[in-house]
């Protein structure tokens, strides 16, 4: 299974969901596939699940999606315990697990290339609806179906290492520009003011 084909399937189903990515290949691929105003491309590893959790709690009627990587989740394993207890029903996490730090350019293996099983860790942390997906047909059935369900879902998508993200254009949207586009989109679609934006 290739990450890009999973993202293509997700991109075709986006309407008013909020999509939070961490920094790695999926951030580049997603920004190339989707120009939606509800995308927030967090610029570093290990922060996307936390930011998405805060959004999911603040906007419980809104579906929030995380596109994350094995390296990023390994950097923030405490998120699993918090998600396992909060269980926000409107949050879906996709971890694209290729078993390497591909952004390092030396593709050094992550712990999931060895003995570590993120799905088992998520379940043990209290995320009952955690699954490993290895085939694209399974992603279509389970992964995509979760978008229409009202339950925290955590998918570890076992993907082949792909270097496609090194070939496609990197996003040129400044982080602050992305933030304001995202917040203005929320203000418009939620019909409320986000307080910190303020008035000049």
């Amino acid at each position, binding site marked *: 299974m290739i990450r890009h084909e999973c993202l293509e399937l997700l991109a075709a189903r986006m309407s008013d969901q909020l999509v*939070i990515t961490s920094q790695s290949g999926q951030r580049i691929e997603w920004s190339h596939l989707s120009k939606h105003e509800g995308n*927030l491309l*967090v*610029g*570093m590893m*290990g*922060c996307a*699940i*936390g*930011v*998405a*959790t*805060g*959004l*999911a*709690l*603040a*906007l419980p009627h809104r579906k929030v999606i995380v596109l994350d990587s094995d390296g990023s989740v390994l950097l*923030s394993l*405490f*998120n699993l*315990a*918090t998600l396992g*207890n*909060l269980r926000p029903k409107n949050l879906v996490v996709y971890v694209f697990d290729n078993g390497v730090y591909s952004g390092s350019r030396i593709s050094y293996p992550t712990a999931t290339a060895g003995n570590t099983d993120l799905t088992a860790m998520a379940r043990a942390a209290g995320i009952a609806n955690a699954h490993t997906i290895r085939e694209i047909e399974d992603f279509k059935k389970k992964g995509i179906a979760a978008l229409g369900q009202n339950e925290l879902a955590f998918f570890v998508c076992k993907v082949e290492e792909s270097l496609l993200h090194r070939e496609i254009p990197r996003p040129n949207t400044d*982080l*602050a520009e992305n*933030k304001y586009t*995202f*917040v203005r989109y*929320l203000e418009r679609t*939620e019909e*409320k*003011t*986000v*307080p*910190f934006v*303020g008035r000049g």
Partner: protein
Amino acid sequence: MKDELAKRLVQGLKDAGINFVTYLPETRLSQIVPLIRDDPEMELIAAASEQEAVTIAVGATLGGKQAAVYMENTGIYVSSYSLLVTGKQLGVPILLVVGYLGGVPDQRNSFLYATIGKHTIPVLEGLGIEYMLLNDGDGLEGKIKDAMRAANAQRAPYALLFAGEFSI
């Protein structure tokens, strides 16, 4: 901290617009946790790490909440990465409510805390995070409002360091 001071601190947070608090408990200010938990106008979220407490607060702020993170000052060290890449780099205002252990005004200071306290302000300054030191309840509510206003204006985290009477 006397119960009355804890009540004023929580009311001060509410008056400043705070309606969402993430936290890891510590000793100095811990009386505020049940007060926030029992307040129907505030949402209290337990985190497993201060790094995560910061990112959840950042997400909630982007979603329209006014968020604070309650932590010990050791949490500043733990969360410095997420403070930098989500709070500062992305530019999201959150209020840090910090039990300031090991500083000179800490009334329970000891060899356990002194090293922790010594480096807190240099680390905040290194991160470019503004802060205010509070040792007593004089003007407490106004100071919290000032801090939240500064955070919003700068689109950045702002730290309130509680010691002195707050550390009794």
